[in-house]
Structure formats: structure tokens, C-alpha cells
């Protein structure tokens, strides 16, 4: 196909052609970046938790009134919950992944350090790792006689010094001691030394205010909670039993203590879905804008194409009369669109890169990977060809006899 005649025609519609190129460029740039943002959100939603998500349910229950026998109370609850058919494991814990409420503390590698090395989250609760289904990759879990009562530890500093073991995640170990095994190492909370007795593959922190890079910085301590200082009962069961167990567990807890407020009972899958709902909403919004943009651009191409075809009706007739086939008229308009789209896409790439630089500067986004550029290019080429097809077919249908008619 000879493109010179196309170029010379376009030169007669400079402004209009330029505007179309500009529109394609802007659309290409925005779509590239938006798709990138959507992917970032989707990736974030896949974040690993390190717990058996599909098997866990959580009930948050607040006891009210007398708290003197909170320990006995909690043990009664746990025993009753374990008797529900289908329950594999139960724990009363201080915090649960994806609930946005967390206990955190500074960690030092040397007690004399002025500034803490980092800030990590603290999981407490007897039987926590077995219930969560968190996989141990080195060392050991806490022994049953290692657990101390949180209630006593919080009041008695001497007793607090007896909490000396901690289980940490592999990520936290790598951050604290890069390239070494964390097992057997000592870290300090305030001035108190803790020996790492076990390492788990992963355990996400309940809230990600510290940034996604710190998501796996978690520590587990051998502390037993009671109904006064913890409210989250976590139950592990088969995926298909979750709803039934949840209902039965709520009834059991209420029966054990009628003066109790059940704040929340949910499966961990639901809790996770809630946690990432902002990301899902944002991804949906971006996808919506992308589609709207492509639709508007396609409408623009259809509109301009129709105008040009109507305007050149006589010329097309002349060409047909001089022997041009329908196919060559069709290809003429397709090639014209392809040319415009290519110029627009080239400009769009530069613009996409610029927008990405701006976003990197102001919103701490990573660099746009190179493979997004061809995605944007192909999308716009396709849309351009589809959009121009209608007007081009109408052009091809112009009969040669038009050439002989006066206006």
C-alpha cells in the first residue's frame, strides 16, 4: 500500500489529524499507567498470610463485669469450643491477621542501641501457631510448660523477665540478621533479651500501616491470654464446616456467659476480603475509567472517520471509477488509521513514561515495566482498526457512479 497519497491527504486535515493523534496518545499513556496500577492492586490482594486462611474463623467476644476469674473463664470457653463437632483447634489470641488492630514494639539487636532496629508486631496466645496453621521451618514450637499468663506477666516485672523465647518469621530473621540463620540468635525488647527458638515460613501482621515491605515482621511469644486481656477466639475447622462451627461457637460463648457482647464473627476469608476492599474498589474504578477512555477514543475515531468518508465521497467515486477495487478503498482507510494510531502510540509511550515518573515522584510507585508499552500499543491499534472498520466499509460501498454526479 502506498502511504504517500495518505500522507498528502492528511496534510490537508492537519488540525483534525493532529487532534486525533493527541487523543490516541493521551489514551495510550493513561491506559498504560492505569493498567499498571490495577495490576499493582491485584498483586497486593494476593499477599501471603502464612495462616490456613480457608480453615479459620474468628469470633470477637467482650466479657463485661467481673474480671477476677478471667483465666478460668477463658479456659471454660476454650474447652467448650473444642467440643463443638468439626473443630480441629482453638486459641484465644491478642490479634488476628487482616483485622487492622495490632500490638507492636521496637526491636533492638543490642540493648545499648539508642534507636531501635525496627518495629515488629507481637502475637500472643496459647496454641496460636497450631491453630493458625503456620508452618515452622526451623527450631521448635513452644512447649506447653513454657507458657506464662499474660495477666501475671503484665503486673510483675520479675515474672516478665522469665519470658525469654520468641518465634519469628523467616523475613524478620533475614531483616535482622541478613544471610544468617536466625535460630538461636538473641534480640532485645526494651532491655530484655529474647532467644529465637523457632522460625516460621510466614505470618502477616494484622495491620500494614508500616508499609507493605514490613508485612511479615512478626514475633510470637509464649503468653497465655484470658478473657480480660484478649477477645479474639480463633477456631480451625474444615472449610465446608466454617459457617456451622461459627454459629455453634457463638451460641456456646453466649451460653457460657450471657453478659457478653459478640462483636464480630467471621471467616478469615471474609476478614481478608474486607481488609483489601479499598484495593478492590480502586482496581474496579481504574478499570472503569480505562474502559470509558477506550470507548470515548473509539467514538472519536468512528466520528472522524465518518466525516472524512462523507467529505471524500466524490474522490472515492473517482478512484473507484478509475479502477480501484473495494478492497483497496477499505485498505486505504485502514492504513490511514494505522498511521495515525502509530504516531499517537509513539507519542503516548513518551507521555506514559512521563506520567509514570510523576507518579513515582509523588505516590511512591515503582517504575512502569517495559512490557506495559506493547500492551498499550496493541490495545490502541486494535481499537483503532475496529473503530475505523464501519466508516471504511461505508467508503468501500461508495459506487463509482458517484464520480459522474454533480453536487
Amino acid at each position, binding site marked *: 500500500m502506498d502511504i504517500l497519497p495518505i500522507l498528502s491527504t492528511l496534510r490537508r486535515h492537519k488540525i*483534525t489529524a493532529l*487532534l486525533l493523534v493527541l487523543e490516541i496518545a*493521551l489514551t495510550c499513556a493513561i491506559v498504560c499507567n492505569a493498567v499498571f496500577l490495577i495490576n499493582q492492586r491485584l498483586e497486593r490482594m494476593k499477599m501471603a498470610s502464612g495462616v490456613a486462611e480457608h480453615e479459620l474463623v474468628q469470633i470477637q467476644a467482650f466479657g463485661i463485669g467481673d474480671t477476677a476469674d478471667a483465666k478460668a473463664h477463658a479456659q471454660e470457653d476454650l474447652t467448650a469450643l473444642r467440643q463443638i463437632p468439626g473443630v480441629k483447634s482453638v486459641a484465644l489470641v491478642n490479634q488476628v491477621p487482616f483485622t487492622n488492630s495490632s500490638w507492636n514494639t521496637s526491636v533492638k539487636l543490642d540493648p545499648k542501641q539508642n534507636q531501635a532496629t525496627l518495629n515488629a508486631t507481637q502475637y500472643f496466645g496459647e496454641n496460636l501457631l497450631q491453630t493458625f496453621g503456620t508452618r515452622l521451618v526451623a527450631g521448635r514450637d513452644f512447649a506447653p510448660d513454657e507458657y506464662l499468663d499474660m495477666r501475671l506477666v503484665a503486673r510483675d516485672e520479675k515474672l516478665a523477665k522469665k519470658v525469654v523465647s520468641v518465634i519469628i518469621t523467616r523475613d524478620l530473621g533475614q531483616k535482622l540478621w541478613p544471610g544468617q540463620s536466625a535460630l538461636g540468635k538473641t534480640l532485645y525488647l526494651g532491655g530484655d533479651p529474647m532467644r529465637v527458638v523457632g522460625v516460621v515460613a510466614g505470618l502477616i501482621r494484622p495491620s500494614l500501616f508500616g508499609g507493605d515491605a514490613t508485612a511479615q515482621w512478626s514475633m510470637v511469644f509464649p503468653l497465655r491470654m484470658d478473657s480480660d486481656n484478649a477477645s479474639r477466639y480463633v477456631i480451625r475447622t474444615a472449610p465446608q464446616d466454617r459457617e456451622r462451627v461459627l454459629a455453634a461457637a457463638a451460641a456456646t460463648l453466649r451460653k457460657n456467659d450471657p453478659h457478653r457482647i459478640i462483636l464480630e464473627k467471621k471467616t478469615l476469608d471474609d476478614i481478608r476480603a474486607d481488609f483489601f476492599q479499598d484495593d478492590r474498589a480502586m482496581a474496579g*474504578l481504574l478499570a472503569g475509567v480505562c474502559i470509558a477512555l477506550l470507548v*470515548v477514543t473509539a467514538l472519536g475515531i468512528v466520528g472522524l472517520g465518518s466525516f472524512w468518508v462523507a467529505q471524500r465521497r466524490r474522490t472515492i467515486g473517482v478512484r473507484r471509477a478509475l479502477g480501484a477495487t473495494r478492497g483497496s478503498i477499505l485498505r486505504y482507510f485502514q492504513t490511514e488509521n494505522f498511521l495515525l494510531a502509530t504516531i499517537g502510540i509513539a507519542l503516548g509511550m513518551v507521555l506514559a513514561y512521563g506520567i509514570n515518573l510523576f507518579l513515582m515522584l509523588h*505516590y511512591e510507585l515503582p517504575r512502569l515495566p517495559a512490557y506495559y508499552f506493547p500492551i498499550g500499543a496493541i490495545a490502541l491499534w486494535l481499537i483503532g482498526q475496529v473503530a475505523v472498520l464501519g466508516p471504511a466499509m461505508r467508503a468501500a460501498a461508495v459506487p463509482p457512479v458517484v464520480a459522474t454526479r454533480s453536487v
Partner: protein
Amino acid sequence: MFAYYLDLALRSLRRSPVLTGMMVLAIGLGIGASMTMLTVLHVMTRDPLPELSAQLYYPHLDPLPANYPARSEWGDPSDNFTWPDAMALLEAHRADQQAAMAGGRVLAWPVQAGRMPFRIGGRYATAGFFDLFGLRFEQGRGWTAADDEARARLVVLSHALAMQLFGRTDVVGRTVRLGDARFQVGGVTADWAPQPQFYADASGRGNYGESDRFFLPLATALDLDLSVSGNQASWKEGGKTSGNYTWLQVWVRLKNAAQARAYRQFLIDYSASQQKLGRFERPPANAALYPMMDWLAHQKLVPNDLRLQLWLALGFLVVCLVNIVALLLAKFLRRSGEVSVRRALGARRRDIFLQFGVESALVGSLGGLLGVAIAQAGLWSVRQRPDSYAHVARMDLSMLALTVLLAIAGSLLAGMLPAWRASRVAPALQLKAQ
């Protein structure tokens, strides 16, 4: 003449209904999307207390140790006050109206036996709170500084909580159980819900859609060790009354710039005196006094996501406008023949420009109307979203006017170039060419 042009425009648009529809749709989508985002941003950055905001200030002291890490994602602990500093500022009485406060959540017990208690949020504050922010009492009154001193078991209920607990609001003197303690009701305020909740700790991210349901003396809350919500930070051992535990907010009302200058100096002098005592390690010049709106900006209540969405919406609007320019240009130039005839018959360039300008404006107005509808649908979908600010996203009259204005201005601007091009068409040449 205008009516004639309008008629011409209507005829022209009716001749190609599909294309007109496309242009209107493009403007409508662009305007709708950007106005949705602009409205959300407008709602989030508006003045929560217009009648008093010019006089309200948030003091800032920096009691942190010299080697404390710089502001992190966990927030700056010096945004809040330690107990000794807050009390020192209040006791100096450098502002006519002032109060220290903290947010908290407690269990509230309905008076009817057998009904379950429920958790509510409220404010622990010093006596000046009600005057400072201009709360209106429906019944009774607030408490006095003497009550603060005596750690009185007094509570002020919001209208909503009084109705919820008692089913009525004339409840002054009655007793209500909050947490494990009993309080005497001293007053009932009219419902008061500034959005964002500017006076609260920044970690609440503006607490959009929330309001305080009860108020009780700060010292009483401290006495009973009631739970405090919001960011709390300490850098040495010591409890809530120690000088290295920040958890309070302090607000003052100053009448004019001179008072504000004097207060700022007072903060610096106070910091210097604390530095001499060895309590503060950082330079006294770190002390500052923020006007209310500056403080809100400083707290960065607008999430990054939202700004990103605004940029996206504006980008979208630009694409839609470019699209309109191209379509109008093609449409107008297609009518070169008609223009030639009109010009040959004596129409001036101005007339042609005006005629096509009217047609652009018509397309713009229709697009604007569609844009308003789309923006309403967009805001409705924002309100279905989980974000805390979402359900305050509503368009007020000024935003509505801005939407229509933006649509017309946008399409007028977009129509300018095509109309100008059309007006350059030579009178008879076109006739000859065809």
C-alpha cells in the same frame, strides 16, 4: 439573532443524531468523572467549623528526645501532647478559650434492665471544651474547672445518646453507667458532628461520619483509666501523666493575629524553659502554632488514592475535550459549503463564529446536564464504598453550579477552535470548488 442561531444549531444537531449523541456522551462522561472526584476532594478538604475556624489554633510542642526517629508512617508522636505540657499550657491561660482532650470508647449501659450495653465513642476533655468549640446545650450545662479538679463523675450526653439510653433528653441529674463507673448527667448537647473531626487525633484519619456521643472530664477519665483511642506513644517508662507519653490534643481560640503572635512566642518561651530544665532536648523553635485549616493540611487527611483518582479523572476530561474539538472541527468544516453561501450572502466572520459558538455551547450544555447525572451516579457509587469518607460524598449547590459551568466552559473552549476555523472559510471559493 441568538434565537436564530439556536434554531440553526438545533437543526444541525438533529441532522446527525448519532454523532451529536456521541459528542454529548463524551463530554458527559468526562465532566461526570472529574466532578465526582472533585466533589469527594471538596468534601474532604472543606472547613468543618466555618463559624469558628478562623480563630481556632493547634499548638505544637516537641518534647521528643533528640535521637528519636524522624516522622514515620506511624505518625509523629509530637503531634500530640504529654499530660504535663498540656496542663502547663492551660494553666498559663494565654488564650481566652482553651481545652485539652483525648478520644475514648466506653461501654454504655441502657437504663432499662436486660438491654445489652453497647460501645460508643466520645471525648474526655477539660471544662473549656464546650465554650471553645461553641457547642449548644439542650439541657443543663457542661462542667467547671473545679469539677475537673475534683475528678467529678459528671458526663454530658449528646442528644442522640440521651435518646438511645433514656428515650428522652430531660435527663439532667440522672445516673448513667459507662464502663464500670456511674456518672451523673450534667447536660445534654445538641448533636454536633464537624466533618472531618478536626480536633481528634490524626490516626482517626478525620473520623468521617463519626461524632462524639458523650463528654466527660479528662481528669476523671484518667482517674478511672478509661481506654483512650488514637495514637499514643512513649519513649521512656512512665504512664499517661508522665512527661514522655503523648496522647492529648490541645486547642485554643485566639481572636486576632496579634494574639496568635503572642501565643506563638509563649510556646517558644515555654519550650526554652523546658529545655533549661533538661526536659526538652530539641530546639525551642520547633514549637509552632497552626491555624485550624493548616493543621488539617499538615495531618494529610486526604488519602493518596483519592488524589490519584482526581488526576485520572482530569486526564479523562482532557481526552474527552480533545475528542470534542476534533469532532466539532470535522463537523463544522464539513459544512464549509453552507458557510461559503452564508458569507457570500453577507454574513460577517463574527456571525459565523457566533453561529458555531452557539452550536458548541448547546452541545456543552447537554453534555453538562448528562455530566451532572453521571456525577450523581458516580457519587452514589462512592457512597457504597467502604472508605470512611465515602458516605459524606454529596454534591452541594456550589459544586453543582461548578459542574454545569465546567461543562459549558469546556465545550465553549473546545468549540472555539472549530468555530474560528469555520469562520475563516472564504466566501465563494468553496462554491467554486464543488
